């Protein structure tokens, strides 16, 4: 037994004045009476009281001293060594993704999960170390391993709900990685289970993972997709595509469209279970501002996925620079009504003035990092450099869901020569050929980059209808990030938004207030987009807006997971040996309180007698 706060024992010194007061209290009051004749017997009776009766008279003082001693001891925070398992390493993984905002908790699932976590923290031993990881758009360590329960509780109380999709697997992997090398690792996952995210292959090792399920219900209607595109019939009009889906039980839903807060249109639909329902709203070309889509359905439990926003920019032509291109390509680009085409024979112009996108059909100059550009062929300066001699090849597979491959059939294209590439340069293969990737695309330094591993002029692709379609897709994809799309700028909540800028200082305001903007190397970036809604970014004199939406089938499918199957690491926690320390102030304080009740009872019983 030892004391964590020995100074608390000083409270015991109050026993001295307490005893003194008690004896001062018995200093007798002198009362003159006619005669003490009849009182003598009383005095004799009291003097001859039994030891027990005398003890009873002092009982109150003894009880009071005992209460004081217990309180002093409790303030001293005594801890006792206890032969039990060694301290545990407890990792709390708290799911705060959008689905945890479902209103079948107390009131939300996140609140219920937080309560469970707080209860668990309250039951930890002094020797236990605990860590808090939250899973929102990303897994974040909110409190590293600590024995300070107050810090853990404070961190838990500060956890706010996210409206973004998250990965429980990422959170659990982080938890397991941080707990490596520790004994008796317990991972407590407070979550509704993350829908169908596969967790069974987690490298749990010796750690025990326990799910504390949150939520009970499954009924939810959600907006799962929102897309704003130019009308195929008129460049002056745009269309808003909305896809909603009902989970759990069928329902009737209404989708309302608001433009700058004014109700613009309403469509009602029956919402069968698990079947996407698409709706199209027509928008005038001059419309601009904030678009808000609201889904109203009976018994809906998750509000986060019932609203989606779009920042509707006025239609603006894309400034596209073609460097060293051939006439066919220039002609195809010029036919795109969205594009204002600039051509330049050399690469110098590419870095001289800002363009929304630059297409190189020749060497790529340095200094393009952070800008959106396409390298149409295996040219020097491309992210993935060609190696070896070009050889004829053919397309094997391609990502049919990628915007770049939309409506383009790559299979019949004859590639006269394609170069093998030295890696992917940080890009992702989109079209795979016999000898390696034929088309790569991805983000580099905040800008979008695509690269062709073959020379299009040495293939029959320019002769095919797929070539202008591919250029159309490429311009759309490359300029989507530049904020010039007539379709409006939309991202999924939790993903970063960035744009090229010449401004040195930028500020951004989101649905929850001001959010940080990082301006670095000509690129402004907003990382904190976990709240769904419209974000406004001020880049010098220029103002930009984008919308962040949940739009996540995984989060909207709120049926909770009640079991967690981890293939590996089913080992139960079996700490052995050692001793742990347990604080005793709580039982001491409770005992003191009980004695206080006894003292009160004795005092009043005596008064009544």
């Amino acid at each position, binding site marked *: 037994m030892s004391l964590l706060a020995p100074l608390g024992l000083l409270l015991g010194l109050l026993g001295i004045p307490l005893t003194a007061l008690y004896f001062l*209290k*018995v*200093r*007798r*009051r*002198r*009362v*003159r*009476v*006619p*005669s*003490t*004749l*009849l*009182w*003598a*017997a*009383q*005095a004799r*009776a*009291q003097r001859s009281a039994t030891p027990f009766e005398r003890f009873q*008279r002092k009982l109150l003082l003894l009880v009071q001293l005992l209460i004081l001693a217990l309180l002093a001891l409790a303030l001293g925070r005594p801890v006792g060594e206890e032969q039990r398992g060694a301290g545990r390493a407890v990792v709390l993984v708290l799911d705060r993704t959008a689905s945890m905002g479902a209103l079948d908790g107390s009131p939300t699932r996140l609140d219920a999960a937080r309560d469970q976590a707080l209860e668990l923290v309250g039951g930890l031993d002094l020797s236990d170390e605990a860590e808090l990881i939250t899973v929102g758009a990303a897994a974040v360590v909110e409190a590293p391993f600590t024995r300070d329960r107050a810090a853990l509780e404070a961190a838990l109380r500060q956890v706010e709900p996210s409206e973004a999709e998250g990965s429980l697997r990422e959170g659990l992997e982080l938890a397991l990685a941080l707990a490596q090398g520790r004994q008796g690792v317990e991972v407590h996952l407070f979550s509704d289970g993350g829908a169908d995210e596969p967790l069974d292959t987690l490298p749990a090792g010796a750690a025990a993972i326990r799910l504390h399920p949150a939520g009970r219900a499954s009924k939810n209607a959600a907006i799962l997709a929102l897309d704003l595109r130019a009308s195929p019939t008129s460049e002056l009009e745009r269309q808003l595509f909305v896809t909603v889906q009902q989970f759990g039980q069928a329902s009737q839903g209404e989708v309302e469209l608001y433009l700058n807060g004014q109700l613009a249109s309403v469509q009602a639909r029956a919402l069968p279970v698990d079947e996407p329902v698409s709706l199209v709203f027509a928008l005038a070309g001059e419309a601009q501002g904030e678009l808000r889509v609201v889904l109203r359905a009976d018994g809906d439990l998750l509000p986060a996925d019932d609203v989606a926003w779009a920042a509707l920019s006025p239609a603006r032509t894309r400034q596209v620079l073609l460097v060293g291109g051939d006439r066919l390509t220039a002609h195809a680009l010029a036919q795109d009504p969205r594009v204002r085409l600039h051509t330049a024979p050399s690469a110098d112009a590419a870095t001289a003035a800002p363009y929304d996108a630059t297409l190189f059909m020749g060497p790529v100059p340095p200094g393009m990092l952070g800008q959106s550009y396409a390298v149409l062929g295996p040219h020097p300066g491309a992210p993935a450099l060609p190696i070896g001699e070009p050889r004829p090849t053919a397309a094997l597979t391609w990502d049919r869901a990628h915007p770049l491959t939309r409506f383009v059939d790559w299979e019949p294209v004859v590639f006269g020569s394609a170069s093998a590439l030295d890696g992917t340069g940080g890009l992702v293969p989109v079209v795979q050929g016999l000898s390696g990737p034929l088309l790569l695309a991805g983000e580099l330094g905040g800008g979008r980059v695509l690269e062709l591993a073959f020379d299009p002029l040495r293939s029959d692709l320019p002769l095919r209808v797929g070539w202008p379609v591919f250029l159309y897709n490429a311009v759309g994809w490359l300029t989507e990030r530049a904020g010039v799309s007539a379709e409006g700028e939309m991202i999924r909540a939790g993903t970063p938004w960035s744009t090229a800028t010449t401004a040195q200082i930028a500020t951004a305001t989101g649905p929850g207030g001001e959010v940080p903007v990082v301006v670095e190397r000509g690129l402004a970036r907003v990382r904190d987009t976990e709240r769904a809604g419209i974000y406004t970014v001020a880049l010098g004199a220029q103002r930009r807006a984008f919308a962040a939406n949940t739009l996540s089938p995984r989060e909207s499918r709120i049926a909770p997971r009640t079991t967690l199957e981890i293939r590996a690491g089913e080992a139960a926690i079996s700490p052995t040996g050692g001793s742990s320390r347990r604080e005793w102030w709580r039982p001491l304080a409770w005992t003191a309180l009980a004695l206080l009740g006894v003292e009160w009872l004795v005092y009043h019983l*005596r*008064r*009544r*007698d």
Partner: protein
Amino acid sequence: MALLSPELLARLTRLRLGSRRRVPGAGIGSRPSPRRGQSQEFADHRPYVPGDDLRFLDWHVFARLDALWVKLFEEETDRVVQLLVDRSASMEGEKLDAARRLAAAIGWIALGNTDRVLLAGLEARVAEYLPAGRSRRHAPALFHALEALGAGGNTALSDAIAALPRQRGGSMALLFTDLLSPEGHEAPLRRLVATGAEVHLFHVVAPWELRPELRGEVMLVDSETGEEVPVSLDDAALDQHQARVLAWLEDVETTARSLGVSYHRVSTAAPVEALVLQTLRQQGLIL
């Protein structure tokens, strides 16, 4: 302060002091004597014997029965009513006040019946003494002496009674006391009874003596001896004390009755009018 109001005195004027027994007096008074006398009040007949005063022959009886019977008359004697008031320190306050008022009332009645009334203030000795006087002319002196009677001194009633002047003839001793004396209550009563007087004990008790309004740790100081008695007073202790006092009162009454002493308990809470006009009349002391 007047001991008795004029209204009360007027009401008491019509009363007279009774007696439990006949006592021979030192002179002619209005009290019946065991000796048959020559008063106007017929007492009995007895057969005539030579030498009897022929004036007392009952000629009516002789006419009807043809027998000589002599009428016997009550011989009326006076007596001394001794008002013995305990004026010790324990009587201080309402108890002495009640004793003085009661003594004044009884003295007033007695003086109206040709009794001789004396007053003695007792403590360890006879502290005050007003010799016996007759008729209500004596009343002012009696009342003045009663009013001047102050409390003080220790109680030793036996010694004080022994120091009282002896009275000739029959006497009635009315002792007003709380009997709170270290010598106990029996000794002074025995001493008084031994004087041959008809003894009436007026036991003065204050209600708060049964259950004083005291709580906690108290040092009780005896008003006469200065003795200190420490007691812890709570409800239980007060209950015990009350039971002891009641038992003591019972004991005093039993002792008094066993000695032939009339026992009258006087509560200081009761007005003197009620005591005299109701209680004592019911007990036959006042007629």
